[in-house]
């Protein structure tokens, strides 16, 4: 069905696919390429492990099960052509692009978008451009950012338990046949930077990029340490949302008119229209997801607004609590 730089995707049953991890490894948009024995298996089981953990926290992913050592069964999705990168500490292309030194802490973590196209060298892309070029919708951007921040919170705490610092990572998202946005692709040593908290030793794909050697040994070391964890970090994830309810343009807003007249009396003559609306802040005790957004839509339609006279808009985000 599809063959990428490190994985193949094959049709499975019931809207599912097989995600087959190969031993190939590449860097710098495919310019450096190699085969490393056991790499497919290492990334396959690491992805399965991390997807399982994310699922525990209510993050919706494409992962279903592991079929064999290098195959995952996943939901069939249409991959959104924009990668989301989340950075806790400066490294890699961020340092080159902005001329900053490696190792600076970024608080709150920074989120960047990259357009998936090797020929263009995966360029950094702004939200506005990605929406304009229809690579993703405004709603999808909002969800992808919130989910990425939630995933970051989980992974930072998780790796902290095995004394590793999550420097940065990349997520890909997919659209399901019923229109949900879920985390897709892989989450492994190939898609993140991990540094040992004590020694600063590199435990990720930078070992390959910088020819440091022992790539698989370090991937497997991270996996083994994760496997030995007896419990997961105690986190209570919550998603914030705000709903703005506005009177429709065709409906008279007496309160807005009174406010306008008051402004005019205060000598703000340049204003000719004031509309007052309502602001509803909602704290949701779940991780961000398409389902949550749908529930918020229902709440807005059934309670927060009266569709006859009012329109509403929903903003949803995830805040790191540290």
């Amino acid at each position, binding site marked *: 069905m599809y063959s990428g730089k490190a994985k193949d995707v094959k049709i499975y049953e019931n809207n599912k696919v097989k995600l087959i991890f190969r031993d190939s490894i590449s860097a710098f948009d495919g310019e450096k390429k190699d085969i490393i024995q056991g790499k497919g298996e290492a990334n396959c089981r690491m992805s399965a492990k991390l997807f399982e953990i994310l699922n525990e926290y209510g993050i919706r992913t494409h992962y279903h099960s592991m079929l064999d050592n290098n195959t995952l069964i996943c939901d069939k999705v249409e991959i959104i052509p924009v990668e989301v990168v989340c950075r806790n500490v400066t490294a890699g292309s961020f340092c080159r692009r902005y001329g900053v030194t490696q190792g600076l802490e970024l608080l709150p973590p920074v989120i960047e978008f990259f357009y998936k196209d090797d020929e263009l060298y995966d360029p950094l892309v702004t939200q506005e451009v990605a929406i304009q070029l229809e690579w993703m919708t405004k709603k999808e951007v909002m969800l992808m950012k919130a989910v990425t921040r939630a995933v970051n919170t989980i992974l930072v705490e998780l790796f902290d338990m095995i004394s590793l610092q999550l420097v940065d990572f990349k997520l890909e998202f997919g659209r399901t046949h019923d229109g949900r946005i879920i985390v897709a692709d892989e989450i492994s040593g190939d898609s993140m930077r991990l540094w040992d908290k004590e020694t600063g030793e590199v435990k990720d794909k930078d070992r390959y990029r910088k020819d440091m050697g022992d790539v698989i040994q370090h991937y497997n070391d991270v996996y083994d340490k994760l496997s030995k964890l007896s419990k997961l970090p105690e986190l209570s994830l919550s998603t914030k949302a705000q709903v703005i309810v506005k009177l429709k343009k065709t*409906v*008279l807003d*007496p*309160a807005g*008119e*009174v406010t306008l007249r008051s402004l005019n009396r205060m000598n703000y003559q340049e204003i000719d229209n004031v509309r007052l609306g*309502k602001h509803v802040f909602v704290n949701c005790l779940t991780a961000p997801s398409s389902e949550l957004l749908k529930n918020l839509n229902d709440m807005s339609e*059934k*309670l*927060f607004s*009266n569709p*006859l*006279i009012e329109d509403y808009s929903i903003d949803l985000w995830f805040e790191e609590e540290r």
Partner: protein
Amino acid sequence: MKIGITKFPGTNNEQDVTRVLNCLNVENELLYPRDYRKLKDFDALILAGGFSYGDYLRAGVVAARTSLIDELHDFIISEKFVLGICNGFQMLCEANYLPGVLTTNTSTRFISKWVNIKVNKTNSPLLKGLESKVLRIPIAHYEGNYYNTEASIKQLKDNSQIAFQYCNEKKVVESMSNPNGSIANIAGIVNDKGNVLGMMPHPERSSFHYLGSIDGRSIFENLIEELKC
């Protein structure tokens, strides 16, 4: 024969309604939000006015999402009578048992005063004998501005569902007599079957001579008459 009167937190007109029903010798009982299972024991329901749940969010909407008002669905389907007064009318609209919505008065003021309303011809037995009369009746509300789409207003007119319109003493429906900005001076409407009536004015406050008018009393008398047959 027993009539229920709803009492939500913030409802403050239930005693006035009780007084009228007692005076007309009808058994009646207050119904609280959790009493929805009792609904089947009643022959008619009056949603009394006030400020249910502080009228937070929108007037009547929080009450409209309670089990009691949810259960009203079957009650209405079975063609039992429901009368929503003021906040009760707002609940019926927010619950979609009546079309439209009551929004802020154009004056942005709470209006408490006597008005005249013209009774139109409808299929509702609650308005029997009142057609084309003018009732002198008080209003007291902040959100009494009836709003609906042009198409729905036309439909209400065509189906003879506009029960009451604000008018002058000479029965002329004109903008000067419109206290709150309601489209087509609408003060009350009925559903298509005629068993649900919602109105902003207070018939219970115009049911005794000592209150200054008995024009509202006929609506309760009609209701009781209907329940007898």
